[in-house]
């Protein structure tokens, strides 16, 4: 049986400007695929290609519009008259800390990222976010020391760096948020007691004998046990 997921050639062509240089590419491609079609081979500015790694932060503008817009090259479809340029690296501050020695205190953000106090609430960070997160809101929460709010509002952050590049007061929102999530996960969220208990059982050797038996039993036996195992209902 032939599996043929055919793709017909698209005829519609759009004109884009890759770092100012004009190329004609098929409509419907993402910026990333359009650049490759045009002949670029990425070393930087390309990671997961699926919207998860933040490696392909891109700034673009469409002809006739003065607005600079932000996107992920792997997630944004090209438009006719698009000027595009990538930002493959953000030279942002990332202080070194030992999480074991920190506590989830109200002042922890001001200590490591004092510049957050300079936030002028311009909301440019929020507008820059390709994940549509409420970046300014979480920066404000960080100023208040509300760790939970920062952690939850920032959870879907892919750390692409665009918020930091746009901030007029040099705040690095995504690193502030990382610290918040780590503190929240480590110190604020309640620990799972059942995990601890299971580790003790495993260390005491509780399951060793049963697994040994499974390892040594005949293939037929094993298959039968597998088929007969009870499935937890929804």
């Amino acid at each position, binding site marked *: *049986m032939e*599996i043929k*997921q*055919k*793709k*017909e050639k698209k*005829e519609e062509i759009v004109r884009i400007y890759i770092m100012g240089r004009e190329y004609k590419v098929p409509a419907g491609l*993402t910026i990333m*695929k359009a650049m*490759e*079609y*045009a*002949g670029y*081979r*990425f*070393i930087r500015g*390309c*990671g*997961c*290609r*699926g*919207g*998860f*790694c933040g*490696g392909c932060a891109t700034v673009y503008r469409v002809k006739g519009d003065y607005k600079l817009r932000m996107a992920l090259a792997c*997630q*944004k*479809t090209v438009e006719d008259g698009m000027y595009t340029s990538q930002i493959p690296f953000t030279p942002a501050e990332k202080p*070194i800390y030992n999480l074991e020695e920190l506590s989830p205190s109200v002042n922890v953000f001001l200590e490591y990222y004092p510049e957050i106090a300079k936030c002028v609430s311009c909301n440019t960070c929020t507008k820059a976010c390709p994940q*549509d997160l409420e970046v300014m809101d979480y920066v404000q929460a960080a100023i208040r020391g509300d760790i939970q709010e920062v*952690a939850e509002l920032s*959870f879907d952050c*892919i750390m692409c760096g665009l918020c930091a590049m746009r901030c007029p007061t040099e705040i690095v929102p995504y690193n502030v948020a990382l610290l918040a*999530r*780590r*503190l929240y*996960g480590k110190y604020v*969220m309640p*620990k*799972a*007691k*059942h*995990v*601890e208990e*299971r*580790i003790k059982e495993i260390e005491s050797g509780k*399951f060793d004998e*049963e*697994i040994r038996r*499974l*390892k040594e039993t005949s*293939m037929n036996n*094993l*298959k039968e*046990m*597998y*088929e007969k*195992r009870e499935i*937890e209902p*929804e």
Partner: protein
Amino acid sequence: MSKIKIVRGYPEYMRESIEAVEKTRDGRLKETFPHMSLEERDEILHKFHPDYKKEAKRPVKVGPNKGDLMPHEVADLLEAHPLIKPEDVDLSKADFDVDVLIIGGGGAGMTAALWANYSGVDAENILVVQKLRLGDSNSIMSQGGIQAADKSNDSPVLHYLDVIGGGHFTNDPKLARRLVLDAPLIIKWHEELGVMYDRETDGTMITIHGGGTCRKRMHSARDYTGLEIVRNLKDEVLNKNIPILEFTSAVELLTDEHKQVAGAVLYNMETQEYYVVKAKSTILTTGGFGRLHIQEFPTTNHYGATADGIVLAYRVGAKLRDLDAVQYHPTGAAYPEQIVGLLVTEKVRGLGAQPVNKNGEQFVYPREPRDVEASAIIRECYERNNGVETPTGMKGVWLDSPMIDILHGEGTIVKKLPAMLRQYKRFDIDMTQDPILVFPTLHFQNGGVIINENAETTVQGLLAAGEVTGGTHGKNRLMGNSILDYSVFGRIAGVTAAKRAKNAKIGKLTLNHVTKYEKMLKEADVTTDRKAPILLPEYRGEKVLSRALDIF
């Protein structure tokens, strides 16, 4: 090309089929398609799984696995010339002399680096080499979760049974045992790092089913589980000041006169300069082969998944296994075109969405092991012709995502699947209201470099962990066992390397194995100009490539 009318993200003609799906929804909410017996699984795999297509594979002509069947795309890389010639590299002076060299900075690599450090190797005696940025990997893309048998109704014994059955009883039992017994310990370590797993207010982990699980043991962090773990690992590696070389690939391993691996030759992808690393232990954590596009399938994998690790390991004589077993994730996006092949996490089915055909009918239990589920979708599209065709000619089946909010309450998708929701919203599709179109996509390298319980390969001095290895999952990995795999064996590799650091003695660095490999290729009559590892896939447009001049 005439413009197709798009209605809420879908071409108008697909709306008819979506209506059929809506019509059958109430009935389907009450009834789930039964799961298959082992015989039925066997039959559908043989008939429809791409792995069983004979012409897609060939026996590899050289090396320790000579004669083993592998996909052509993999055999091509093993039957290829090395990138460097021994005479091009000056081995008399090492640019780096370390205890632990880690090749690959994804989940396995960072975990190994941290545990080598915890186990007593100073940060400056570790070196992590990463082809892209630190953390760029399949690890960061994994969405659905991580398995660990830590609930009272569950046990590592049941987890073991699921792993072995899901792998069609072909796994290495010792590795499967280690995987399940160390799982809770990994969850605890992640908690200590600050990973925000989804929990009840009392701390109890929220867990759901995955394909082939008999207990709800999938732990997740929304549908950004991989991202959340990798963010923590990366921050921790940076905080420990562990040296990292980004945009640098390993192009060949080094050996010494004791026939052990002794480091690697690295290549700066940007300046094209090489570096020589001498290392007491070398850990391969290079990930898998999705970007080889086996049988021309699209892939969920990240840009660097080009099988470099198996090539490097094979050249020094490490044995491989199960490379004939390719995992096609049942649900890759089939529409819209911009995201074809990207992952639709198994968590969507875990939360209750059913796959249905163009008529809105169920045709498979929603959570069979991945290869079985994928085969059923292929059968539905190609034998029974019940797929929906996209404007570019792809076929797919519906995954009835709106069921999730009906089953678990409105807002569940917003809360538990934000990545999926966002992905589709970018292309004007609202998965809380409309189903999404899926078809299998190349997802995971089931096999790889053989390791033992200490993460040691068959060659002294070379360790490996994560997707580059084989055995743990046999011929088919279950959802939620890949994060677990890289965590368990990444940790073990770090610990083993730290032990080796105390006693290992490295002799004179050589590339003799490269000369030997070339000789082997010649003796096997392999005539080719292919070179490997390929480091990155080639996606440049055909027209450009046909006119490219090599003068700069």
